[in-house]
Each structure stands twice: as structure tokens, then as C-alpha cells.
């Protein structure tokens, strides 16, 4: 599927606005036919990165290579990439057909060819017969499809998508996620996708780039990022986590919540401060007498697939996901297998502690 050849290389990109650094020495590459997602909270620089590739922004320093050639000075209309904008940016004065045909008309293709390709695109996005409609008469989901069709019809090397599903409701969003992914696989186009929704990133991507404050924190495939987050921020951002301050007593033994726990990590040194990350679904509820920790259930929330319980263990509070419910106020035991305790070097953390 994904080819090894680098299609786009960003080398040491820095971008400043009025003295504020929004991207700080970013380097990453995108391979042909890869689905890459830039993931991060708002203001992390993900959209700026996308806009630099599209050509709407010029980096303060660094180079953007496209098939090995620097394209920094190439204006957007000469780049072989197309963008799907956050709020679609459809042309309100043109109908659906003319919106999609916009790029083709600029290429001065013959009319019949344009009509054929526009109709094929409408088919692809399940909007056959909508050509004559006004774009503002369409629903959000339909506008979204037109925006994608308008970009894809130009057969770009890379499709850049800037939070394209952000304005849709949950159900529609889930459906579009699958559709986009299958479209990408069928057409064999490289996608660069920007989102702040970690679930979206995990579902669709070949590669996820986690960003924060203009830095790249981690690059990897979804499973790797979920299972082996590089630091507490990534862990917290990708799925829910209990993040605790702890001390590495020695290799494979960590101390947190007032107890020592066996784990599988090593190489941190002795008595080193660390961050301990435990996914809520990795904590097992057991009898009060057999648990490594004991605590009182403070609250229980039904979340559909599982129950989310907040358990107070005195020295620490844990969030636990379980399919069996324990009544509020009851005493339970907590048990964590060594493999599920993730140890990370400490970093300044987002304001929250587990």
C-alpha cells in the first residue's frame, strides 16, 4: 500500500508571526499513498503546517521538498496538492457542478471531458444528480462531499484536509471517516489530514504526527502511539489515561500511589522521578483483599459500552473503565499487570493530574 518513496519532506521548518513562533524546527516526511494525520490541540501548529504545504504560508526558515524539489517559492496555484477547507469554502455563487468543475476549467479541458469527470466525481461522493443544485441549499454533509469532490477531481498528488469533519454531527462524522479512508485506498492518493480528534486519527491514519506548541512530540502508526506514548501529554491526548507522578525505584520496579509496582520498563536509573501512565481499561477491579491497591468508589457513570468509575485510593485517584458495575461507596481492590504500566520521563504536563 504505502510506498517507500518520500513524496513530501519538511526539513527544519520554522514559522513566526510577529515574533511569535508557531512552528519550531519541524521535520517530517510523507510517503506516497500514505494517510498521515497531524493531531494536536488547537494552536499546536498543525493547520499552519498544512498551509505551508498548500502554499498559503511561507515558512520563516526551512525547506519544503516535493518529490525532492524545493517548492517554498511556488505559489499555491502551481502546486500539485489540493485542500479541503475547514468550512468547505465552496463558491456560493456557483452551483455544485461549477464548483467541482472550477479547477478543470482552469486547465482548459474540453467541456465534454469536464462534464464527464464532474459526473464521475459526483458518483464517487454519492451526489449523482445534484449538479444543478445551489451549494447553500445542501446539508453540511453534502457540502462536505462537494468540497472533497472539488479537490479530488483535479487528481492531486496530495489531498490536504483541514479538520474536514469538524462541522458535522457525530454520526455523520463516523460515516464520513470510513468513506474517506476507503476513498483514499481506492484512489491511491496521499492524504494529509489535520484534526484534534484523537479517535478520528486512530481510525483513519497510517501514520499519526502528534503536535503541541509548534513541536512534534511523536510520529508513529496508531497502535504504536496508543500503546507506547512517548510522554504523558501524548498519552493523555490519545485516549484517556491516569497520569501519576512516581519514582523509578530500580529497573522494573516503580513506586506510585504509595506502593511499589512491578513493571517492564528499565533504564531510567535508580530513584528517578517519572510519569506513570495507566489506561483506565487496564485497571482490573478485584476483591478488596486481593488488590494491589484498595479504594472507595466515588462515582459511577454509565458510558454505553462500559462503566466509568472514579476510585479514591487515598494516595491517588484512578479513573477505571469496566464492564461490570460496582455500587458507589463500595470498597474494591485494584490490580494492574506490569505490562500495562507505562513509564515515561517527566515533562511539563498539561494542567491536569491523574
Amino acid at each position: 500500500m504505502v510506498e517507500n518513496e518520500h513524496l513530501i519532506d519538511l526539513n527544519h521548518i520554522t514559522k513566526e508571526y510577529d515574533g511569535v513562533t508557531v512552528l519550531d524546527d519541524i521535520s517530517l516526511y510523507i510517503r506516497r499513498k500514505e494517510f498521515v494525520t497531524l493531531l494536536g490541540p488547537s494552536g499546536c501548529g498543525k493547520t499552519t503546517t498544512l498551509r505551508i504545504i498548500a502554499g498559503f504560508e511561507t515558512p520563516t526558515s526551512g525547506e519544503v521538498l516535493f518529490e525532492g524539489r524545493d517548492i517554498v517559492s511556488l505559489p499555491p496555484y502551481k502546486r500539485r496538492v489540493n485542500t479541503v477547507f475547514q468550512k468547505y469554502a465552496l463558491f456560493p455563487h456557483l452551483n455544485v457542478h461549477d464548483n467541482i468543475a472550477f479547477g478543470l476549467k482552469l486547465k482548459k479541458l474540453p467541456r465534454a471531458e469536464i462534464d464527464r469527470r464532474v459526473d464521475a466525481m459526483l458518483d464517487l461522493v454519492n451526489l449523482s444528480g445534484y449538479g444543478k443544485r445551489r451549494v447553500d441549499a445542501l446539508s453540511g454533509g453534502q457540502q462536505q462531499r462537494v468540497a472533497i469532490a472539488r479537490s479530488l477531481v483535479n487528481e492531486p498528488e496530495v489531498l490536504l484536509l483541514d479538520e474536514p469533519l469538524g462541522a458535522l454531527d457525530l454520526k455523520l462524522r463516523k460515516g464520513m471517516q470510513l468513506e474517506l479512508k476507503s476513498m483514499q485506498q481506492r484512489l491511491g492518493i496521499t492524504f494529509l489530514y489535520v484534526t484534534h480528534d484523537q479517535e478520528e486519527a486512530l481510525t483513519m491514519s497510517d501514520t499519526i504526527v502528534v503536535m503541541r506548541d509548534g513541536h512534534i512530540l511523536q510520529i508513529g502508526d496508531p497502535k504504536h502511539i496508543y500503546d507506547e506514548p512517548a510522554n504523558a501529554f501524548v498519552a493523555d491526548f490519545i485516549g484517556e489515561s491516569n497520569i501519576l507522578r512516581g519514582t523509578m525505584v530500580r529497573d522494573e520496579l516503580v513506586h506510585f500511589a504509595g506502593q511499589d509496582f512491578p513493571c517492564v520498563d528499565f533504564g531510567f536509573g535508580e530513584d528517578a522521578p517519572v510519569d506513570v501512565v495507566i489506561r483506565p481499561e487496564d485497571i482490573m477491579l478485584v476483591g478488596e483483599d486481593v488488590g494491589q491497591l484498595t479504594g472507595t468508589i466515588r462515582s459511577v457513570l454509565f458510558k454505553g459500552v462500559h462503566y466509568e468509575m472514579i476510585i479514591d485510593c487515598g494516595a491517588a485517584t484512578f479513573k477505571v473503565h469496566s464492564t461490570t458495575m460496582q455500587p458507589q461507596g463500595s470498597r474494591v481492590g485494584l490490580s494492574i499487570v506490569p505490562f500495562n504500566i507505562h513509564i515515561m520521563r517527566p515533562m511539563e504536563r498539561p494542567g491536569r493530574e491523574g
Partner: protein
Amino acid sequence: MSKVSQFFKRFYLGLVLFFLYIPIVVLIIQSFNAGKSRAKWEGFSFTWYEQLFHNTSIMNALWVTVSVAVLATIVSTIIGTLAAIGIHAMKKRPQAVMMTLTNLPNTMPDIVTGVSLMLLFIFANIPRSYTTMLLAHISFDIPYVILSVLPKLKQMNRHTYEAALDLGATPHYALLHVLIPECRQGIVTGALLAFTLSLDDFTISYFTTSPNVQNLSTLIYSATKLGISPTYYALSSLMFVVLLVLLLVVNKRTKEA
């Protein structure tokens, strides 16, 4: 909503409209009066309408009024639209300066605008004429065009222009085929406003034209000193009807569109 309060509201609005329309009705009636007196009805006639078309000074003034309005509208729409696009693209500080300068003529009383332009022409040693009046009209029209176009630009999705570039449009193609069509409504409103203001202007024209080149307003003004002839009533009744028909046609077309 009770019937009584509904009735009261309609009655009040009716009263206000009556107040606004009564002089117009009086004017139109008088334009058909056979006699010259404002006070006495001397029978129905088209005399004044006939005289109207033989009155060269009125016909000249009509020509001046309409041609100035058309030319001023065209020029101010072009300059104003370009200016709105330019101002929209400016950084904050220069943008604020431009907006203050754009709002200035709006807040300046017409008479001050008029005399200041008169001083300018006198200072530059330019004799007042048709052209100076036209220049004055363009000057007071441009801000209205800008103020109509600018909100449309602001409303526009910031990314629409970028989307055009992204799809391969050069900047000037995007300008002509995306930016301008999208603020078309604002441009049309601005042009209509400019035309109306220009057509009806008296004060500024009065100070910027020469006595040889009169538009309708200045002509009427000088006629009031001698006692105004009902020919003018006929003229303005005619113009009123023409504009009314135009409005109905435009309204119908926009409804169909």
C-alpha cells in the same frame, strides 16, 4: 396579539406614511393643474407636461443630472470596489486610518464638503464646471460604495479565495471569478446608493458647479427665487413614476432570481 393593538399599529404607520406622502400627492396633483396658482384648481390639463419637453433649461439640467449620476456611479463603483478589496487586505493600523478617512465625508455636513471642494477648485485655479461637479459627486459616492462592499468581503469565508488559488486559479483570476462575484450584491447596492445620492444631491453640486451648468436641484433652487413653475412638478412627477416602475421591475426580477 390583540386586534386592537394590531389596528393601532397599522393606524400609526398609516399616519406616518400619510405625513410622508402628502406633499408628493399635492405635487402630482398640481402638475395637472391648468392654472399656475398653487392654491386654486383650474381644471385638469397636460399643459405643464407639454411645456416640460420644450423647456431647454430643464432638459439641459435633466441631461446634466442623469449623465453626472451615471458617470459618477460608474467611476465610484470601480474605485470604491477596488478600494474595499484593498482596505480589506490591509493590516490593522492602515486599515483603521483608511476607515476613518472613509467615514469622514459621511459625518461631514454636506455644506462643509461642498465649500471645502469649492475652495479646492478655487485654490487650484480650476474654473467650476461640469467636470468639477462630476469630481465632487464621485468623491461623495465612493465611501458609500466602500461601505456597502466591505461588509460582504468581511462576511466571506476567508478560505474561499484560497480555495480558488488551491484549485489552480491565479490571483487575478480568483479576484475576477471568485472575489468580485461573491460581493456582487454589495457592489450593486453601493452603485444604486451612489446613483440615488448623486441624482438627488443639491448642496454639494451647488458649490462645485458654475452657473452655466445646472443640474435639476440647482436649477430648482434658482427658480424658487422667481417663483417656481408647475413645469417642475410635472418633471419630478414623471421622474418619480419612472423610478417607481424601475423599482417594481428590479424587485420582480430579484424575486424571480
